[in-house]
């Protein structure tokens, strides 16, 4: 548990950092960044809360087992989406230009960016983002858990 200044700034910044991280994941196929970068930003938000409030307060908000489940969902989603295109090849982009989900034709030239394009890439970005945020978040969480355990002994 840190000082009141740190906790107040954390309360203000926490939601913004999370939303920015999810924005980076969501716009991975249009702007710089993607699943890994957005997941790292979200995990840094988790780390900020963990530093400010201490492990004992945070452990009721996010469980380590929940993060493990999220990480597995990310990995399975990535491989599953890759296998869905196996009718042509592994990792085949079967949604692109199909008119369905994320299926609008790609706009050529300078444009503001259409979020509804590029097929399976946004879904894979979400899978990678989930895996990275859960993995890095559980790394920090485990570090805090081990240190608290060391204090007790």
């Amino acid at each position, binding site marked *: 548990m840190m000082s009141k200044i740190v906790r107040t700034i954390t309360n203000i910044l926490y939601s913004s950092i999370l939303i920015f991280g999810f924005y*980076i994941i969501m716009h991975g196929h249009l702007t*710089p*960044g*993607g699943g*890994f*970068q957005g997941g*790292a*930003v979200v*995990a*840094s938000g988790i*780390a*900020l809360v*963990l*530093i400010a409030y201490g492990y004992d307060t945070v452990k009721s908000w996010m469980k380590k087992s929940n993060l493990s489940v999220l990480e597995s969902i990310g990995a399975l989603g990535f491989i599953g989406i890759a296998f869905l295109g196996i009718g042509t090849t592994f990792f085949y982009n079967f949604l692109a230009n199909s008119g369905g989900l994320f299926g609008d034709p790609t706009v050529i030239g300078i444009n503001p960016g259409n979020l509804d394009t590029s097929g399976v890439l946004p879904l894979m970005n979400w899978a990678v983002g989930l895996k990275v945020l859960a993995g*890095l978040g559980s*790394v*920090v969480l485990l*570090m*805090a858990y*081990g*240190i608290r355990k*060391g*204090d007790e002994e």
Partner: protein
Amino acid sequence: MTNFGKVISVIEEIIQILILLIIIATAIMAVSFKDLLAAVISLAATSLLLSLEFYILQAPDVAIAEAGIGAALTTAIFILAIKGTVRREEL
């Protein structure tokens, strides 16, 4: 190249040299501090300036990753480790 473009490129080069010099200074500070919390903060400053340098070198993708991992997460892990051990390095 126009005169204006030359001025801009010279300014950019000066900014890059300044950033690199400050990166070297903060890295030396991170090694030489005996207060480990100050050393960790210096390391975070090094990472942040490195991500700024990546951004100037037209690699915003790498800059986001460096700012997220290098400046935020490793600092958090180091601060947790300092909380678990001692703050001052013994001579």
